[in-house]
Every structure is written in structure tokens, then in C-alpha cells.
């Protein structure tokens, strides 16, 4: 499977489920989805990466681009990820300091509510 995307709203937060591999070939689809969600005024996003099997710098760029877009509207983009193989590239690049990374979708949503 290359990349499978889905999204739903929970407690006012748009959750994006990502499954498969995010690389130079598939990342544009995720980018388009994030842009579309922001254009539809969804500025509180949680990207669930628990089923992501591969993530490279192109994927990081898409996530960073999404973060910048929501921040322009005082929004936020958090991640859900417990896989060490995926967290590694965030650590190598220092982006663990940039993204809120949570263990569960409910945990990410709860954290966002506390921020409000």
C-alpha cells in the first residue's frame, strides 16, 4: 500500500488518519489534504501516524508546511506517533521540539483542550 488518508472531526478537532508510506511520491497527497482542510477553516489538526510505515524528509516538509499554515491562523498541528522507527527522523532533525507528539489521538485532543 502506498498511502491511505482519512479524516474526521472529534470534539472540534480535525483528525487526519495516515496509513502507509509518506515519501517523495505520496507526500503531495497528504499536502493537498492538509491544504484543503485549512482552506475549509480547520485550524486545529491532529495527524495520526500510528499506521505510517515510512516517513522521509519530504513527508517532514509536508507536516512542517501544514504546521505553518495552521499557525498563520493561530491554530496547531499535533502528531500521534509511538513508533520509534518514525520518531527517529523527528529526533535526527530536531523536529521533536517543534511538533507536539502524543501517544494517542484522545491524548492529543485532551492536550489541545488544556491549551485553550
Amino acid at each position, binding site marked *: 500500500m502506498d498511502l491511505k488518508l482519512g479524516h474526521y472531526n472529534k470534539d472540534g478537532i480535525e483528525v487526519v488518519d495516515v496509513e502507509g508510506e509518506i515519501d517523495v511520491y505520496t507526500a503531495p497527497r497528504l499536502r493537498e489534504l492538509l491544504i484543503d482542510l485549512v482552506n475549509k477553516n480547520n485550524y486545529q489538526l491532529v495527524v495520526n501516524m500510528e499506521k505510517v510505515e515510512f516517513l522521509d524528509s519530504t513527508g517532514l516538509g509536508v507536516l512542517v508546511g501544514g504546521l505553518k499554515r495552521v499557525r498563520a491562523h493561530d491554530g496547531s498541528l499535533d502528531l500521534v506517533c509511538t513508533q520509534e522507527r518514525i520518531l527517529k527522523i523527528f529526533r*535526527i*532533525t530536531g523536529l521533536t521540539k517543534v511538533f507536539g507528539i502524543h501517544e494517542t489521538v484522545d491524548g492529543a485532543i485532551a492536550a489541545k483542550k488544556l491549551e485553550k
Partner: protein
Amino acid sequence: MATVEVTFTPLPAHVRTARLVATAVARRSGVDEALLDEVRLAVGEACSRAVEAHRRHCPAEPVKIEMTDQGERFVVVVSDHAPTGTPAGDAVPPGANGYATGAGPGPAPGAAAVIHGADAAAMPAGFGLAVISGLADDVRVSSTSSGVSVRMSWPSAAPTA
């Protein structure tokens, strides 16, 4: 010394194929399972960089990847034919020619630049190479007027008698 060479049309869809082949050859060469994810990611980064360079400068030229079992090291070289010295996207950090040894996971190679850069969607030039340097303990980037070669290696099991 066993060598597997793959050339592919510079299309993003083929980067995954290159990753899969490199991982399979690395496993066969005796690279530890714990390092295979790093091989996969590093090779993917190098191939993605080469594909983007070719799409910009020479879309009809194939990207080449050579994988060699050198006994105690598994070596991968990704070569492109995109001329260097052209703006954006060549992604060869200044002074990258010659030997550059990665020291494993380290400080953020430009995380601040990533966030505050002008383009919301693009990573800074050289970001992919910076990621590679965090994944392989031996990285060499050779840049000439006719293209760039990224050489990476990992320890592999010595051949048994």
C-alpha cells in the same frame, strides 16, 4: 565483492523500489536488522534528492544506485547527472565535497530554518543530506560539474569461512 546496480527513470514512484532493493541487498550482505531502517531511509533520501535534481535538469537521464558488499561494510552510492552550481534544490551543502563523517543522531540540522523558511512546503536545500548524515556513520558527497555522488556505508557481518 558483490555489486548490485540499479538504474531508474527519475520518477518519484521509483524511489520506493530503490529503497526496497537496497534493503534486500543490505540484509543479504549481513547488515544488522536494527540498521536496515536506517539503510532504507538514507537510500530513500539520496534517491529522492537525485530524482528531484534530474527532474529539474535532465529528466531523460536515469539515476544510478550501486550497492556493494565490501566484506565488513555495505556500501551504497547514489549518483546523479544533474549539473551542480545551479540554484535551489541541488542540495549539496557548502564544503560537502570529500569526506563527511556523520556522528549519528545529533543536533537539529536546521530545524529553526525549516520553520521560519520562506516556503511553507519546502525543506531547506541540503536537508536530505543532513538527514543521511544522521543515519549512516560514513557519508561522502562528491560533487563535480557533471553531477553528485552520495556514498554511504554501514557495517555488515564478515563473511563466514
